[in-house]
């Protein structure tokens, strides 16, 4: 445990801990969503994680053709 905190940093480890707590919370109570797809166990967790990765991936791939020099418009 200490090794993990040392390797991953205090704040990062506490976020990980929170993630685990919220997963456990779902197992204790009964969570239901606005739509039936959301009712799958841990759906928001998967959705949140994947969305963030997808946003990052698309964002980085857009860099190649949307990103120009800082003085692009001043030329």
């Amino acid at each position: 445990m200490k090794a993990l905190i040392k390797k991953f940093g205090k704040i990062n480890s506490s976020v990980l801990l929170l993630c685990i707590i919220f997963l456990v919370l779902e197992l204790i109570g009964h969570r239901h969503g606005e739509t039936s797809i959301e009712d799958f166990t841990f759906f928001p967790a998967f959705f949140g994680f994947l969305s963030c990765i997808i946003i990052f991936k698309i964002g980085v791939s857009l860099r190649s053709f949307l990103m120009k020099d800082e003085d692009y418009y001043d030329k």
Partner: protein
Amino acid sequence: MISNFPPGFIMIIGALLIPFLPHIIRQIYMMILVLISAYSLTLGFGIHSTINVMGFDFILFQSDSLTLPFAIIFHIAAALNVIYGAHEKQWKQHVSIMSYSGAAIAAVHAGDLFTLFVWWEATAFTSVFLILAGNTYRSYRSAFRYILIQVTSGMFLLAGAIILLINDGSALLTKFDINSLYGQLIFIAFGIKAAFPLLNGWLQDSYPEASEIGTVALSTFTTKLAIFCFAKCFAGTELLIVIGAIMTFYPIFFAVIENDLRRVLTYSLNNQLGFMIVAIGIGTELAINGAVAHAFAHILYKGLLFMGMGAVLYRVGTCKASELGGLFRYMPITAVCTIIGAISISAFPLFSGFVAKSLIMSALGKEGLVLVYFMLLFASAGVLHHSGIKIPFFAFFAHESGIKTKEAPLNMIIAMIIASALCILIGIFPSTFYQILPYEINYQPYDFSHVVGQLQLLTFAAFAFICLWHFKIYPPELNSTVLNSDWVYRKMIPGVLIPLLKLVERMNQKFEEVIMISFSRTKIFLSNTMLKNKVFDREVGSDTLIVIQIFTVFLILIFIGQFFYK
């Protein structure tokens, strides 16, 4: 007498005195103006003042359950702006902010399209000085583009209003039909100010170029005025759901790669407007409440984020992620307030974003719009990524930039603390907050499913960011320009139009040369032959030749014209 004055009007008139007052008294005076203007809100609902000009009744002051929440938040924002800008000793920006806030508040209370048009343009002309106050060559050029686009929006509104007046004999501000011509014109006018997809270039172009005080004021009024107008005139228009969903979706990717943190916030602003537009498109009572609640909460937390970044800009002189970092040690209060804004915009439970956004998400769920629902859920994770994490992380933590500075001025800190407190209070006491919404509501945002679902979504999205950063997958921020829809009129149109004009000019020259040469050669040839054969004498010969040539041209034209006519 004062209470019959349209709210905001007193602020515009009062702004004229600001240049003549000394610094501190000026701030107190502006606060009093805001309070007097707010006093008019106690008058209750109904039409309170009209003025007849050239046989047309301008409804200057009309209030109902929809205008009230917007009027309240606009006054709060105006007061916060006064506090936030108190360190600024020059009068110019204060005049601009006071009259701009006043115009926006007056616009909300307009009862007909022509009154709205006047205030609509007034918001543009008063706010452009805030962009000019950026005081760089870039902001100067950006201000010109800003005013051109805002005036264009006004022209659409005016055209729609005139057509409506001719058709119906009145131009009252009520619900409009999107299928009519005037409806479409007004829709486009509102759409430009609400920064619809492809019409949004001005927002990201101009706001980040304004002064640190100016951006805070700008982020509050113009776009939310457009949201108010949509809620009033186009509630339940299904097209808005589609437009809104796209709006929540695509600015995320731009925000992720943008380097200027204030520009990241404008993309985020654009994305938040999308949530409101979707809600207005649904049009049910719950959804409209959601849109208004979201606009209310949004003004506070977005203002707070802009205040935080404004404080950084004021102290450090830049807002670029690539140049900032490690400021937490020097600006702890600014950092904490910005983090509260970031948590609020990410919609963590117990903060304002959560109680507002839940209404919209529930309205979507109730209507069974599953695809849009998931687009907005995806966008919620995106908001956490670019506003919730990127803004505070790159400004106050990330790498050590080596910048040494001091905490923001006291007035800025007070404004940020008040805004933070409001964000938290709204989050903790949602039922009190819901009382100001246009429709009666019986909604509980804090149930187990909502809270756990939202917390899972957000913590795991945050965890994904942490993984990307920790394992060094996240690329470093670069000094760059990210292309947006304003590229069309800043690069593409000049890029195509200027060579095209030059080409046309060259062709015209060539054509003239060819015609001149052929005319003169035929003239010489014919006159030579005619003179040799002694058909005509010289004088008459050349005159006749001209007549013959004109006649021939006519013949050719008639000949060609016949084909087209058929």
